C-alpha cells in the first residue's frame, strides 16, 4: 500500500491548494447520516481511505455496509436535504463535502465518474446510446458541435469494444445485450477521461464470461488512462483479480484495510475470515461443510454497541470480558503489520487464524 491512513490535522483549512504528494482521492473521517421517521440511519461512520492515480481500491461488504453510500458521497450524489455528510473528501485537492452544486457539476463526470450496477436502469430507455454518451461529453465541452459529439460517442464505443460502433451508436439500450450495455456505461463514464472511476458492482448482473470481458476492459482502460479506480463489490474473487488495496466494510465502518494480497492471504479480522470461509471455491473440498457467518447484518438504525460485528462473531471468547460489547475497537495496525489496519479487539489474530480458522485460511 503506497498510502497509509494518517489522521489528518483537524485544523487544516478545507480550501487548501493541491498538495503534490497527496493521493488523488483522500477520504477522511467521512460520516453519512440519513434522518428518517424511524431515527437516524448511520450509513457511514468515520471512514477514511485514499486512492492514488493508477491504483485500484476494492471495497468489499454486504448490502447495507455503506460501501455504495460512501462512494456516492465522493461523487456528490447525495441530496443535501436528506443526507448529513461530515468529514472531508478531497478530489485532486478540491474539497467535495459542502461544495456548491454548480462547482460539483464541473467535477462530476469530468474528474470523477461512476459506473453503476444495473446498466439497464442507469441508461435512459428513450434515447439512443450514442446520444447519452455524447451528453456526458457535451456537458463538459460546451462548444463542441453536434458532429464532434457524435464522433466522440462513436470513438468511445469503439474504445470499449462494441462492434460496428458507427451503426450501434444509434441503437437504443434495449437493443444492446447486458454486457454491451455495461460497456456503453463505461464508454459514457470515460468520455471525459476522468482521473477517478468508481465502479459500483460493475459485473454483479453479468455472466462469468461477460464479467471476465468487462474486468479485462476495466484493467486495460486503467493502464491506458492511468486513472484511479474504486471497485465496489461483494465478490471476493473480483477483488482478488482487480484490486491493489482492499477495504472491508461492515455496518458502515471500515473493519480491515490493507493490500489485496495481505487481506486475502493473511486476514486479521473475524468478519473477513467469515467472508473467506463462507464462500465455496473452485478447488475447495466439496464434502466439507461451509462455515457461514451466523445471524444477519446489523441494523444501521440502532447498531450494536461496541464492535458492530460482535453479535455474529465466533471469536469473542478470545477477548477478555465484555470488551467487544462495550467498546468500539479502533482501526489500527497490529504490531509488525504497519500497512494492514484492522478493527478488532483480538490481541494476536494470526495465532487465532492459525489454530481456529485453518485449513480454510491456509494458502494453497
Amino acid at each position: 500500500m503506497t498510502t497509509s491512513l494518517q489522521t489528518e490535522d483537524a485544523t487544516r483549512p478545507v480550501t487548501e491548494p493541491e498538495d503534490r504528494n497527496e493521493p488523488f482521492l483522500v477520504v477522511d473521517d467521512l460520516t453519512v447520516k440519513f434522518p428518517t421517521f424511524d431515527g437516524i440511519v448511520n450509513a457511514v461512520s468515520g471512514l477514511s481511505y485514499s486512492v492514488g492515480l493508477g491504483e485500484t481500491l476494492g471495497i468489499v461488504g454486504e448490502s447495507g455496509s455503506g460501501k455504495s453510500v460512501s462512494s456516492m458521497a465522493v461523487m456528490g450524489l447525495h441530496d443535501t436535504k436528506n443526507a448529513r455528510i461530515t468529514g472531508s473528501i478531497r478530489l485532486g485537492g478540491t474539497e467535495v463535502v459542502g461544495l456548491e452544486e454548480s462547482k460539483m457539476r464541473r467535477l462530476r463526470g469530468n474528474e470523477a465518474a461512476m459506473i453503476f450496477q444495473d446498466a439497464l436502469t442507469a441508461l435512459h430507455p428513450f434515447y439512443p446510446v450514442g446520444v447519452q454518451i455524447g451528453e456526458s461529453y457535451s456537458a463538459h465541452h460546451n462548444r463542441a458541435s453536434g458532429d464532434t459529439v457524435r464522433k466522440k460517442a462513436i470513438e468511445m464505443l469503439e474504445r470499449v469494444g462494441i462492434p460496428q460502433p458507427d451503426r450501434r451508436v444509434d441503437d437504443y439500450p434495449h437493443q444492446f445485450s447486458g454486457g454491451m450495455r455495461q460497456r456503453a456505461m463505461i464508454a459514457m463514464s470515460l468520455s471525459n477521461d476522468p482521473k477517478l472511476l468508481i465502479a459500483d458492482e460493475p459485473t454483479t448482473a453479468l455472466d462469468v464470461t461477460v464479467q471476465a470481458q468487462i474486468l479485462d476492459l476495466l484493467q486495460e482502460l486503467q493502464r491506458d488512462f492511468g486513472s484511479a479506480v474504486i471497485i465496489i463489490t461483494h465478490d471476493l474473487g473480483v477483488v482478488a483479480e482487480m484490486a491493489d488495496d482492499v477495504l472491508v466494510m461492515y455496518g458502515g465502518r471500515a473493519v480491515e484495510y490493507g493490500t489485496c494480497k495481505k487481506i486475502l492471504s493473511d486476514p486479521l479480522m473475524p468478519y473477513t475470515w467469515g467472508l473467506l470461509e463462507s464462500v465455496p471455491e473452485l478447488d475447495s473440498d466439496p464434502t466439507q461443510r461451509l462455515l457461514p457467518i451466523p445471524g444477519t447484518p446489523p441494523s444501521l438504525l440502532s447498531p450494536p454497541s461496541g464492535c458492530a460485528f460482535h453479535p455474529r462473531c465466533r471469536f469473542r471468547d478470545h477477548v477478555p470480558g465484555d470488551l467487544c460489547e462495550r467498546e468500539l475497537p479502533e482501526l489500527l495496525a497490529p504490531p509488525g503489520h504497519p500497512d494492514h489496519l484492522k478493527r478488532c479487539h483480538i490481541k494476536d489474530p494470526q495465532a487465532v487464524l492459525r489454530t481456529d480458522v485453518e485449513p480454510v485460511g491456509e494458502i494453497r
Partner: protein
Amino acid sequence: MSATRAVTGSTAVTSDDVQESGRAETNGAGTPEALLEVKDLVKHFPVKSSGLFRRTIGQVQAVDGVTFTVNRGASLGLVGESGCGKSTTGRLITKLHEPTSGQMLFEGADLAPLSGRQMLPYRREVQIIFQDPYSSLNPRHTVGTIVGTPLRVHNMVPKNQMIPRVQELLEFVGLNPEHYNRYPNEFSGGQRQRIGIARALALQPKLMVADEPVSALDVSIQAQVINLMQDLQKEFGIAFLFIAHDLAVVRHFCPEIAVMYLGKIVEIGPRETIYKQPHHPYTQALLSAVPDIAQAKLGGRHERIMLQGDVPSPVNPPSGCRFRTRCWKAQDICAKEEPPLFQIAPGHQAACHFAAPLGEERTTPIGHERVGA
C-alpha cells in the same frame, strides 16, 4: 409440435387416478434408483409479430433436446449463463411451462402430457424454490398462510393441526416458530429464502427444483442457506435439481453437473471430471472466467480463455454446433454436423467434435478417426 404432444398425451394415463396407475408403470420401466428421467425435452416459445393478427414469426428455442436423470436423494447441478435455458428446464419439470415435446418420467410416469388436474398428485412430489425471495412471497399473506397453503390445497393436515405443522416447518428451516403470524416484509432476504424453502418442504417432496436459490442473497447468508438445504436433503432424502450460474456453489452442492449452452447440454458428468478435466471448450472457457481468490493469494493470475462476442440469439441459433461461433476449435464439420453427447468416460459426456482436455488437441473429429487417417 402440438401434434407430438397430442400423440404422447393419448398414450398416457387418462384416468383420474393418475397417481396409482402412474406408479404401477414404474415396476416395468425406469431404473430402480432414477427418480426423474428427462428425455429429449424441448421448449420453444413462439415469437409473435406485432400488428393485428400476431402471426408466429419464429421460435425461441429455449430448451432444445435436453436429456438427464436425477437419482433418488441425489443432486444434479445445471449451470450455464443467462439465456441458456437452465431456468426454463426447471420450470418445465415443475410444469410451470408446458413442454413442446419430450418426456419427463417421474418414477416412470410421464409428466409431460398431464393436464393441470392430473398433475395435482405430482405437485406434492416436485416442488420449487425460486431465486428472488422478495417477489416469490405474497406480501399480503402471513408466513403461516404462505407455508400452510400447500398443506391446505393438498388436504395434508386437518385444520386444527395446521398451525402446529407450520410451526414445525418453520423450525426445520431455522426460523422462530412464533413468527408464523408475521408478514414477509418483516424478514431479511435470507430469512425469506428460508420461508420459501419451508413452503417447498411442506409437502415432503421427493424432488426439489432450486432455481438460483442463493444468488440474490448476501455472501455471508448464502452459506447458511446452502447448509440448510444440505441438511434437509440428508434428513428427508430429497433429490435436488440445483440450477445456478455460480460455478463454485454448484460444485459444492452437486456431485453431478450438467453444463448448458443455448438450450442444450454440452457437457455432463461427475463434478471432479467437469471441474478438473473439462472436455468441452465452453466448459473450459466458463471455468477459466471465474475470478479466483486462491490464485490471487499466490500473487499470480491464471490464464483465461476469453470468449469473443455474445451468446447468439436462441431464435436463430447457429447451424451444427451451437457454440461454434465463439469456439477457437471450430472447423467446417462444426457448422455442418451437430455434435451429439459423446461418451468420454463412464458417466462423462461432452457434445463436441473435438472434445479433449485442456492443453490436448484432437486433430480428427470424434467418430471420424478412420476418415481422417
